[in-house]
């Protein structure tokens, strides 16, 4: 049985050596699927610790970036034990950084965490125009559309993307979540999104409640 608390703490401490060692030992023990899911969840909870330390001024943006990388690596290690894909059964999220914005660090963290929580994520990449979101929604029929953006101008791109979904009659079929440094309660209303957050862990919970 894995010590999920220790794994969670090691992820929270960004102690890569210790995380890798613990996960390797866990994988070697030949765990069952439920156990693997518990460890995936522990890694994700480790990110909540990271978020707290960031909020308290102990961690900085650079640590968030490394945390995203560490989480992705953990999920990649655990994936093979779950038949190739982590979850993937809870629903589909079409995700992208909106037009005019090329920042993707926050988006990638949200993607890793959603995948860890069992979502299938279609990642469009950066600087994606409304038409790309529309095309992806038509093709993949997701339950959720996630838009990321850190620039002030990204708010307008998000608004235009929601309008484009509306025009195609696709808005009613999806929930829209937004994230990134530029978003707020105010901008969420202006854009016409369903939820906003600057904390990926929180957003993943919200998404979980939608499906």
């Amino acid at each position, binding site marked *: 049985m894995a010590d999920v608390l220790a794994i969670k703490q090691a992820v929270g401490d*960004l102690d890569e050596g210790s995380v890798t060692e613990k996960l390797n030992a866990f994988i070697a023990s030949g765990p069952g699927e439920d156990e693997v899911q518990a460890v995936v969840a522990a890694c994700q909870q480790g990110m909540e610790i990271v978020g707290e330390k960031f909020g308290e001024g102990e961690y*900085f943006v*650079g*640590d968030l970036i*490394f945390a995203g990388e560490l989480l992705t690596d953990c999920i990649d290690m655990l994936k093979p034990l779950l038949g190739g894909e982590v979850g993937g059964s809870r629903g589909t999220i079409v995700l992208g950084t909106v037009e005019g914005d*090329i920042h993707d660090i926050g988006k990638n963290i949200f993607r890793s965490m959603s995948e860890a929580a069992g979502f299938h994520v279609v990642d469009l990449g950066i600087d994606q125009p409304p038409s790309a979101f529309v095309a992806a929604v038509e093709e993949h029929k997701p339950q959720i559309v996630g838009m990321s953006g850190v620039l002030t101008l990204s708010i307008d791109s998000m608004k235009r993307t929601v309008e484009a979904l509306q025009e195609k009659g696709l808005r009613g079929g999806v929930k829209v979540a937004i994230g990134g440094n530029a978003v707020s309660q105010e901008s969420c209303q202006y854009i016409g999104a369903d939820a906003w957050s600057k904390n990926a862990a929180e957003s993943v919970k919200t998404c979980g409640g939608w499906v």
Partner: protein
Amino acid sequence: MRGMGVDMATLKERTQIRTDSIEGRIPKRVFVFARFSLEAACGYAGVDLAKAHYDMELTEKAFESICKDFYSDALPVGNIRFPAPYQILGARNWVMGSNGAVQHPEIVTMEADEYDEYIANPYDAIVEKFLPRACPELDTDPANRSLVLGKAYRSFKKYSEGTRAVCGKLAAKYGLVPGFITGELIEAPFDFLADQLRGFKEINIDLRRRADKVKAACEATLPLMLKRAVPPVIRPGQINYIPLHLAPYIKMGDFEKYFWPTLEELVNGMDKAGVACTLFAEEDWTRYAEYLARLPKSAILMFENGDCAKIKATAGKDHLIGGFFDPTITLTRSKEECIDEAKRLVDICAPGGNFYFAFDKGIMDIKSVDVPKLQAVLEWVSVNTNY
């Protein structure tokens, strides 16, 4: 506006205030160093930005509208990012967006396993490997490579000389003196490694996975930066510009070990050679103020955010400091509140001298400010700051 039809007395006064500020005497009043980008100037003048990049008459029209309508002692305009040479090079790290703004997408030009090669011979690694990756047009046979480079250099020269001529003309016409940026653009060795070679994301991963290499790479970068910072012939009054980037995003311990030492050596090296510099502290440098205070006095400081009282008491004791004023507050606050904010800043920083008035960063988009309120703030500083 008082900027127009400037007489000799005004020019003399501005020059005196600037010199007093640089040399640590209490100036007659606070020196005003406003900064507007070409983007903002075009937005204000109603000039097409994408065209202005290639047309010096349009650049002049845009710049002149700023010089004419906003109070500043220093020339408030300038530009160094010309799209034409980058386009000739096929540059991936500086590209013009659809609105004409030249932007910096993140690219990785050096892989993690190439650190040793870079550390052993940074110049060759840059020229032979990393530059062709950043600029694919250079990734060709030597003959064509030199043609491309020649073309790009000629283009850069054309636009930089054109811009300089426009600036010189406007400075003379409006009696504007130079700001505190007159020399080369230099990066802190750590920032050069991060911005030009590894990228923002990778450098933060390197700090955890191969910190020793990062340290060695910064040390290998230092001589390159010094060489650029101290040209064989130093222009009198040369003030280089160092925009500081990554420090606010890393932990104190990492800053002390990896960021600071080579930056300090760089600034000391310039100082010894008789070259001054202006360091722009992006984001919040309050927690590093004690370090900045250790730099030679020839280092002028400019801040984006942070606790100006704390910074004045440390880095601002012996160094000329400025910045902190966020011009976007003009969109949400009344004219009186904006002036109050400028007054608050001046009251904290100006007593005893060693302070100039500048925005927290260059204005990138004129829509991000309220023009009449901003004009009022600049005007206020220029007449109400006799400390």
